[in-house]
């Protein structure tokens, strides 16, 4: 059991489902009491603002749990989904559906039969990491919509795991997408940021099996990448390029080459030991930037989401920017993170601003804010920051100046 006082507990499974599916014009039903969906929209989904009904709550009450009024909810969902003209329905579990053992799969089948809309469920509760929820949503989306016969695109690439809880606003990811296109890649599917201009936001998902390569940019994209290799033979590369060297290394990996030598004389700072706290792929990108672009000799990563699949050997992975240092940690425990931040030799912390109060009074460590939306959501959504490619280099340089 973890105790939180200064920090917010990180977003969990069904928040991840919402993050993964939000932009695909579906109806995501949080199968729990009122309030749960409300909070996701108001706090964790700034995309909600003045948008159509996307994440909605079932509004389960005590008597519904006791009496098992599933038919009432099926009727309500069928009515709303049909009249709102959404492209699909996703049922996602909450602590209540987990505890009472709601048969979400059965409910999904009944809704699909009655509406004729593609319907699926994601088995989430209220305690698992958000990246797992997003991952389950991607797999369900793939099962429902990916076209095994999609036309092959030799230069096609999918970007997997681009969820706002990990990467923030789409504008922050844009330099990477632009960079890929400039390198000659054709963007096929970006999960979860449908490309502007297209009529059907699910087209990229349908076409994704035709791509030649997947790029996994957060932990929530790994399972789908593995699945796509098993089913469609599409290999993947893992990494989120922050700064200059990271981008050069990723470009090489995407071409099937070895990453170039790190610059012999990077920019110099006085920093000796940095700690990066956040999503594992993003944090690894920041480590790479601090080390190779700015010459920080020691950089440790505190991954607040499980790294499992990112580090395991895989036949499907063609290359990876991920690494594992001896002093890296995998924890979202407030006390453990506070202890790591206040270690005497740590002179720089890169993390969401919500972690700043954990630095003890008088601590000398420099704090570089890098919002992690799964931590601070709307609180730091609008903060000016960058990470990808040259924009990321510029942001870090400005912070270190």
């Amino acid at each position, binding site marked *: *059991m*973890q*105790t*939180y*006082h*200064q920090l*917010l*507990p*990180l*977003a*969990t*499974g069904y*928040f991840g489902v919402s993050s993964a599916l939000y932009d695909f014009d579906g109806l995501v*039903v949080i199968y*729990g*009491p*009122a*309030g*749960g*969906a*409300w*909070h*996701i*929209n*108001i*706090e964790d989904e700034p995309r*909600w*603002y*003045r*948008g*159509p*009904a*996307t*994440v*909605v*709550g*079932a*509004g389960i*009450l*005590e008597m519904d*749990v006791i009496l098992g009024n599933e038919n009432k909810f099926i009727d*309500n*969902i069928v*009515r*709303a989904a049909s*009249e*709102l*003209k959404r492209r699909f329905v996703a049922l996602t579990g909450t*602590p*209540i559906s*987990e*505890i*009472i053992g709601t048969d979400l799969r059965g409910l999904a089948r009944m809704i699909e039969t009655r509406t004729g809309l593609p319907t699926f469920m994601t088995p989430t*509760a*209220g*305690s698992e990491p958000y990246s797992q929820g997003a991952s389950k949503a991607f797999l369900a989306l793939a099962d429902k919509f990916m076209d095994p016969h999609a036309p092959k695109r030799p230069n096609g690439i999918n970007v997997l795991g681009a969820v706002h809880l990990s990467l923030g606003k789409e504008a922050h990811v844009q330099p990477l997408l632009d960079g890929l296109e400039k390198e000659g890649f054709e963007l096929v599917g970006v999960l979860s940021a449908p490309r502007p201009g297209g009529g059907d936001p699910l087209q990229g998902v349908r076409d994704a099996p035709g791509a030649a390569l997947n790029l996994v940019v957060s932990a929530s994209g790994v399972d789908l990448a593995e699945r796509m290799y098993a089913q469609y033979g599409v290999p993947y590369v893992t990494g989120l390029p922050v700064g200059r060297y990271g981008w050069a290394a990723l470009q090489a990996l995407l071409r099937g080459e070895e990453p170039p030598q790190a610059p012999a004389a990077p920019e110099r700072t006085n920093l000796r030991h940095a700690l990066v706290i956040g999503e594992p792929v993003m944090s690894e990108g920041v480590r790479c930037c601090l080390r190779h672009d700015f010459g920080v000799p020691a950089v440790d990563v505190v991954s607040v989401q499980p790294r499992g699949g990112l580090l395991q050997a895989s036949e499907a992975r063609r290359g990876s920017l991920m690494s594992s240092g001896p002093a890296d940690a995998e924890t979202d425990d407030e006390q453990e993170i506070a202890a790591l931040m206040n270690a005497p030799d740590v002179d720089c912390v890169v993390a969401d601003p*919500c972690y700043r109060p954990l630095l003890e009074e008088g601590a000398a460590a420099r704090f570089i804010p890098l919002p992690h939306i799964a931590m601070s959501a709307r*609180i730091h*959504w*609008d903060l000016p920051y960058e990470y990808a490619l040259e924009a990321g280099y510029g942001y870090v340089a400005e912070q270190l100046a």
Partner: protein
Amino acid sequence: MLLDQAGVCARDLRRKEDFPFAPLEGVGPNLAGWGVIETCLLLPESICVMAGPSACLRHSAFMAHARGFTERFYMLCLSELDMTMGKHLEKVERGVADIAARRSEKVIFLIVGCPDYILGTDFTGVIARLEQATGKRVILGAMAPITIGLKDSPFTSAYTAFFDFLKDVPRSPDPNTVNLLGTFMPLSDSGELYRTLAAAGVQEVLQIPLCSTLEQFGRMASARTSVVLHPLANGLNGKLEKELGLSSCFTPTAYGFPTIAEHYERISQAVGRTLDVSAVAEAARAEAEPRLEALRGKRIAIGCSINGSPFELAHFLLQSGLQVEALFARSGVRPFEWKILDDLRDIKPDLMIYNASHPALCGRTEPFDHIDIAYGVDAGVFCVNAVNVPLSRYQEQKFGYENTLWLLDQTEQALADPVSNYDWIYRHNFLI
């Protein structure tokens, strides 16, 4: 989905069942101020520990950050499996004991959520042992939206629980003291009500947000009367009335002159003294009339996130000759609002009243493009071209005729120097 499904004309809203039914919770901006933690922490010398799955705790953590009470708020994360198996009781007990050991406060609110409510977890033993071990009072509460409509809301229950700290205190009844209940912020210092009561010999007005110790809070048990400004306090007030014999009156925050006059009359009866507000009322009327006149021709929408009743505000503005076009309500009409609605129906039977959480309303802004002024941040979400006047209870708490003038101040300020609805929600946190 047709927008019509989300709204009803005032003429057709006569019973609870007439309010538009939302087939799913469409997540309109309609739950502002629904904070059990915030309510608990109104009690001085208290901390709050919430236990449950991370997802549930995260919701409350946002409120703690937005309102700045993280210092007195702790969260214990539990897994659903532990809860189902009953293995969490020991962990909660240990967690609360650890927190209690490093805090000096005398009261701990232990708040659990829907899962424990559904599982029927019995915390009696945990609480008894914790009270014995820590020497502190431990009060169990719930942040359980699964109980909506069936029981008192969680924050009403929490507020009512404050009675435990009043029922046994030594009392020395003071006829010159009045309690003000149901406020999160203290009444503003300018305080028309303070002056009016003082002129009638009421020397002290006690308010929970101004009590810094339990001892100060305990003095409320000795007051003559309780004036209730929000239905949240009805439970606590009922106990003070029934068990300690305090007189009381219900005078929810209002904007209209007739309602305010009626409220002063109620207070007068409850405290047993004549309150002379004629000069204040006359001055306010004289000041307000030209300012209301200046708003003539503006088209207005009113939401339920305002401090007070949207029906009462709509009624006052319509009576003043202004043009109210839409009203956004939460879960229907509250008991005290039906009478206001009856009058409202006579003045403007075609006034549209929307269920702000109806999914058909989400993203529908074009029907409200013509609105010039939107009161409440929830109304502001739908009224894209309107200036937004939040009238939030997190801005100021006013009472009486000065509240009418504050409404006009806020409106004029918004017209002269508008703040976007987005900023009210995301920078000023007026939606949670």
